[in-house]
């Protein structure tokens, strides 16, 4: 417990990374704005450039103020929740597996269709989160994917691809 109290007093240096990201976004806005053609007319004396330039400058200012706040010991409070245990470090393996399951769906949804890619997404995500009942996980995934496909794609006309199961479903 005492170890944790000491750790929380040390500056959370990762916050500077976020500041750098904000500053980078500001620079990106300014560079992009400089490439926009300076179109203006009596109809629109402002043109498309001032807003991105203003936002870019404000982002640079905020990133500096943010960095000063961190240097003075400022610390954003990580979000709590019913299922969140903030005493544990970030579980990189679980998050990585979830992202993999997510990307697998993104890459296969058009070719294999939503019913197959969605089932895999559910099963893979549940596995990443610690589910070890593989058959039950897959069964729920297939039921959800089939159910949503028939209800939304066929019932309500929402675009979900049938993929290789075209003609069978």
């Amino acid at each position: 417990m005492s170890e944790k109290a000491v750790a929380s007093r040390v500056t959370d240096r990762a916050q500077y990374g976020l500041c750098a990201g904000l500053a980078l976004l500001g620079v990106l806005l300014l560079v992009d704005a400089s490439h926009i053609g300076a179109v203006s007319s009596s109809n629109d004396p402002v043109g498309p450039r001032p807003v991105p330039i203003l936002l870019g400058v404000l982002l640079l200012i905020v990133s500096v103020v943010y960095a000063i706040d961190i240097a003075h010991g400022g610390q954003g409070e990580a979000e709590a929740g019913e299922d969140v245990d903030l005493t544990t470090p970030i579980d990189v393996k679980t998050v990585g597996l979830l992202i993999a399951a997510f990307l697998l769906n993104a890459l296969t949804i058009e070719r294999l269709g939503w019913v197959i890619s969605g089932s895999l997404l559910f099963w893979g995500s549940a596995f990443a989160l610690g589910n070890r009942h593989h058959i039950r996980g897959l069964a729920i995934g297939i039921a959800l994917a089939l159910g949503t496909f028939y209800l939304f794609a066929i019932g309500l006309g929402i675009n979900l691809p049938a993929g290789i199961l075209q003609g069978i479903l």
Partner: protein
Amino acid sequence: MDNISALIAGFGDVLTPVNLLMALLGVTVGTAVGVLPGIGPAMTVALLLPITYGMEPTQALILFAGIFYGGMYGGSTTSILLNTPGESASVVTAIEGNKMAKAGRAAQALATAAIGSFVAGTIATLLLAFVMPQVVEFAISLGAPEYLAIILVAFVGVSAVLGSSRVRGLASLLVGLTIGVIGIDFVTGQQRMTMGIPQLADGIDVVVVAVGIFAVGEALWVAAHLRRKAAEVIPVGRPWMGREDWRRSWKPWLRGTALGFPFGAIPAGGAEIPTFLSYMTEKRLSRHPEQFGRGAIEGVAGPEAANNASAAGTLVPLLALGLPTNATAAIMLAALEGWGFEPGPLLLEKQPDLVWALIASLFIGNTMLLVLNLPLAPVWAKLLQIPRPYLYAGILFFASMGAYAVNSQTFDLLLLLGLGLIGFAMRRFGLPVLPLIVGVILGPLAEKQARRSLQLSGGDLSGLVGGPVAWVCYAIIATVLLWPLVSKVIRRFHTTEVGA
């Protein structure tokens, strides 16, 4: 009297089988997602957006309103039975509510929360029906510069007043405004921040942003810190209250309503401040102050009423001005835009049927919630036992489906993951997500009003500050932004005086 007849006409519109079914569906889904950890009403409404684009707008809005009110009922159940509130608005309820539950008075805590929410919701919805048209009458005369100033007040309100850190709130707002800039400029047709990616030319759809930040970001964040041993749920029977509980509850309900509604109605409102104020008031006025901290029923009754009244209050700026002050309202605004309505003072004039049917549905939904929640509380509590891997896998499943369905392109799923990672980082570093979503939705509108103002003045910057309303707004913004500086100066002045 106009309002009453319009409201009665609204009831007439709502009382059709399909609309009543939508209200019932909304409050049921709303209560369920309010009880379930990790899902809130904002995320649910965002996930349902792509589906409702094909629905009749009135029905979809009735559904959303049910989810909005139902989410709060469910949220209080969770914070009473589990000592880990899911949202900031129910933090205060958890203080006394969970103590009551531990002392074996969970049934009374749930009952005072549910009945108090019903009383507050009904009174506040009635206030909404009378106040909102007045605000419209005032707002309809406002020109572009005034409207811009009011939007800017909302920006500063959600980022600098709500939340604990101004600079983090402003950073979140600026990221949201930047996302809003992406795409083709609506006047000149120039591409901005598209990086030459053709799919970005139309901008990023609000559905993808909201689902990415709320659903994917939340699922990844919880996954990173998943509680391996589920928190203990206190078992509960059917909620009921004795005579003494009623006697101690009714005044806090009314006081909570009086505090909650005005705070919800101002563009920088929110539920945190009024629930906290209500708690402090009840503690001071109670004849049993020694019970506070050990499960005082007044400490549940007041804040719960304040929470619901403030939720109804947030519909005043939403419907009268087109300004959202909480996340669910922000997504309801995006839905209105998606159906081709122009939110703002003209909404009531152009779509009176829609607006009054929505308000009437709030009364009906609120009554349904009371009927649904008192006898069924033990059933809702069972939802807390759902295995977490399936819950969060389900969130990712529905998030991917909703985001893909918007434009049927794989690119949106990659965008969704990117936004989810931004949402993850924001939760990790304590950046509030509300300013971002408000920035995405209101940013383009603010730019439009600014350019319209300057068009009227021929490019002269003085065109931005026309009229007393704008002056008042800018004075408020300056005060809020400069307050830390001012208070520091005052304090320094004070200490030197004492020192001398």
